[in-house]
């Protein structure tokens, strides 16, 4: 595992040193070929969070296909269930989502390395339900005891569509095995709002904010490359 970490650090280091090395690459006479193929993986952070967070269950598989030297067609497919609780409200969002888009590799690999520092774009869509598990009526006057309603109210058939900007790294840690970290900035385009309620959490999008349509997300991926063909640099 330490090896993976070193790999990531190594990738980072190379960003800073790459500039100084560019001149010497041109004189290298050996031709290195790069693998093209389909990379399949999963989001490890969602699995870890499922284990340590009682209010969360999530699973995501992801794939990218190397279309050209720097361009990858990428997508994610997942399911999430999240219970959000505040002082007055407890609700659960549950559903599945998919995201599709492209990743663009901005990192120039040396020799036979196959790492990425990339920026990407996705369009995501989610189909989900929200259940109000319980709520306490908000009342600043407390002469009478507070009222808590425990009957669950289900809002199903909800959808949301959003766009995502991604920035991340992927590092080859073993032959054909990659790990990656990424951060996502998201903006909702459309959503169906439940009657007399709002979307507190959207599977794939994450939690919503009262201030607007933006959201954030993180991913920690492990993926395996199925090589299809090789091509020179």
């Amino acid at each position, binding site marked *: *595992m330490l090896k*993976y970490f070193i790999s990531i650090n190594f990738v980072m280091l190379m960003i800073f040193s790459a500039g100084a090395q560019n001149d010497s690459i041109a004189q290298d006479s050996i031709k290195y070929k790069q693998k093209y193929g389909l990379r399949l993986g999963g989001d490890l952070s969602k699995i870890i969070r499922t284990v340590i967070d009682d209010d969360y269950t999530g699973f995501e598989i992801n794939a990218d296909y190397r279309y050209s030297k720097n361009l990858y067609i990428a997508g994610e497919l997942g399911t999430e269930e999240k219970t959000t609780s505040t002082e007055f409200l407890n609700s659960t969002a549950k559903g599945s989502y998919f995201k599709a888009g492209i990743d663009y590799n901005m990192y120039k690999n040396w020799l036979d390395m196959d790492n990425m520092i990339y920026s990407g774009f996705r369009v995501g869509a989610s189909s989900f339900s929200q259940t109000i598990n319980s*709520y306490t009526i908000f009342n600043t006057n407390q002469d009478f005891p507070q009222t808590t309603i425990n009957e669950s109210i289900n809002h199903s058939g909800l959808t949301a569509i959003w766009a995502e900007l991604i920035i991340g790294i992927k590092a080859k840690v073993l032959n054909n095995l990659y790990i990656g970290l990424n951060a996502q900035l998201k903006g909702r385009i459309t959503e169906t709002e439940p009657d007399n309620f709002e979307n507190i959490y959207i599977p794939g999008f994450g939690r919503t904010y009262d201030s607007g349509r933006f959201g954030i997300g993180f991913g920690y991926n492990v993926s395996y490359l199925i090589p299809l063909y090789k091509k020179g640099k």
Partner: protein
Amino acid sequence: MKKISVLILLLLLATASCEKDDICAETTATTPKLILRFYDITSQDETKSVTGLRVTGFDTNNDDVEISNLNVTTTDSINLPLRTDSNSTKFTFHKDYAIDNNGTPEDISDDIVLGNPDIVTINYTREDVFVSRACGFKTIFKDLTMSVEDDGNKWIINSEIINSTIEKNTSAHVKIFH
């Protein structure tokens, strides 16, 4: 391994941490109160203060509940909280409330409560309206009606519902003539 765990933990904390959105601000519009104004029965356009008014409510077990700011005041306008767990709230409107302790302030067993209590029942239907993720829901009240129990000595002579929906704490909902 250790460093990666820490990194993941930090990422998780960043997504799960406490937000301003998650705390219900005191200034948020809350469950509204019933506003009553007292008018003169002989000159119905003019307000008339009730002297020594003490209002108490009844809870689920019919026990008295003190209503804040209404323990013996002289006023022509009062705000009452309504029960959010029931479609009616019962109050005692006690006019000229005073206690005659019979000259023995320590001994409450021989105390006599003076004044004229009237039992008032407010009936309504409830609707819970979504406020925000932090505050949840508030209740609004509709189809307001009011009745006064006839104890043979009512000081509340008549009442009139002027706004049968309680959504905001702004204008009066009921006129009471006495």
